């Protein structure tokens, strides 16, 4: 691996731009990785090791790695980090970088569509189940609420997600 300052600067700037503002605080102590369920489960590029790769300037090289999508956003890393890095934010910043380059699994597209159309990322028609447990068939959510759905669509359209051409 070559150490290229230009690539390092670019990786850092990209991550900070996507919300991983604490990345340069990282001292590579590894505490985050010690408690990360994702690292434990075997995702190679989360927490400390993801930050290491980014600080090595390996942004494009790891763009296809799916580890970041295995992050539970549990934020246990944030709780133990002694330097205030908020590693989960770095993981998510990297995820956002991937997402904006459309480097994510197609299976993730369904929930974006659901969100856009119904306001619910997880959507199944609930009417029968609701009737069964004695609730009104239509929940008081955006699920069947036209105005609410339009509001959500306006918020999404009016940002980078809307520009990805998913909807």
């Amino acid at each position, binding site marked *: 691996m070559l150490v290229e300052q230009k690539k390092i600067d670019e990786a850092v700037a990209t991550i900070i731009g996507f919300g991983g503002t604490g990345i340069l605080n990282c001292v590579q102590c590894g505490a985050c990785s010690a408690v990360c369920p994702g690292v*434990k489960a075997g995702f190679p590029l989360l927490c400390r090791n993801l930050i290491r790769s980014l600080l090595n300037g390996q942004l494009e090289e790891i763009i296809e790695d799916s580890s970041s999508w295995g992050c539970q956003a549990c*934020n246990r890393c944030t709780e133990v980090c002694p330097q205030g890095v908020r590693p989960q934010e770095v993981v998510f910043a990297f995820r956002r970088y991937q997402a904006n380059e459309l480097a994510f699994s197609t299976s993730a597209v369904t929930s974006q569509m659901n969100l856009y159309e119904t306001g619910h990322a*997880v959507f199944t028609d609930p009417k029968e*189940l609701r009737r069964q447990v004695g609730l009104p068939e239509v929940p008081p959510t955006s699920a069947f609420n036209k105005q*609410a759905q339009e509001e*959500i669509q306006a918020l999404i359209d009016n940002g980078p997600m809307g520009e990805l051409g998913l909807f």
Partner: protein
Amino acid sequence: MEKIGLYLGCNIPLKAPDIEQSIRQILPPLGVEPVDLEGAACCPAWGTAPSFDLDTWCAVSSRNITLAEEQGLDIMTGCNSCFGVLSEAKHFMEDGERRRTVNQKLAKINRSFEGTSDIYHIAHVLHKKVGMEKIREGLKFDLGGLKIAVQTGCHSLWPSDVYAVKEENPYQPTILKDLCEATGAEVPHYSRLGACCGMGGMRSTDMEKSLKLFKEKLVSIKEETDADMIVTTCSSCFLQFDMSQPILRERGEIDFEPLPTFYYTQLLALAMGCDPSQVAALSQIDRSAIIARIQDEQRLIKEVA
């Protein structure tokens, strides 16, 4: 009666409406009136807007929060993820610059985030606002002798600096333990109490990794507590425990029968005498035996009976 905005999220109203029903049934007798937040949408889940754009995330979350702000109410979530997402978004919105940008987006749908509503999890409402005393008073059945393994779930523990209500020590959470003990049940400690169940992004990205993690947690529960059931305050954890135990059993990866799992308000509703076909009707794992044990006549508390 104290009013609070009931924020349902996605899983509870669409996939597990019996949890919603249990929430609606237990709160009024305990002095809390849940008020619907008409048109509330997804929090938005971690895998959606938060994975694409911080401002869009904050805008969708803030829109949800404004539904409560308009009515002068605080928000109560049932799902841990929703609690986490909304709390984090609110935390981000404390940054003046961010608030300005997001409010510009919200202005397009005639809304404005003011930051006046606090975000609670239903466990917090029960623990801090209702209190153990009142919960005990409302019981119809005493769950003495039953053993519960609790699953608090990550998103109400960490990162503790963004939560309005938090555990004294997030690594040794006690809120759910207290709530379960209020029913008379016993809540033994197990070592992987704070461990992640593997639901969430991990499960959708790599099912096998998720199951591996889940199994470790489950085995710790079984071996260290031999619990009669699992009780959680996270609707995502609930789904993992309910869906994945049968898978592990079928594959022969565990040598014990799946442990019946309840969302906490389901347990409380049962203990308060609610109808199981309404408040605890939907699960993969057959819960009829444990429900019968919970609502056993011998458990009837005299004064109420």
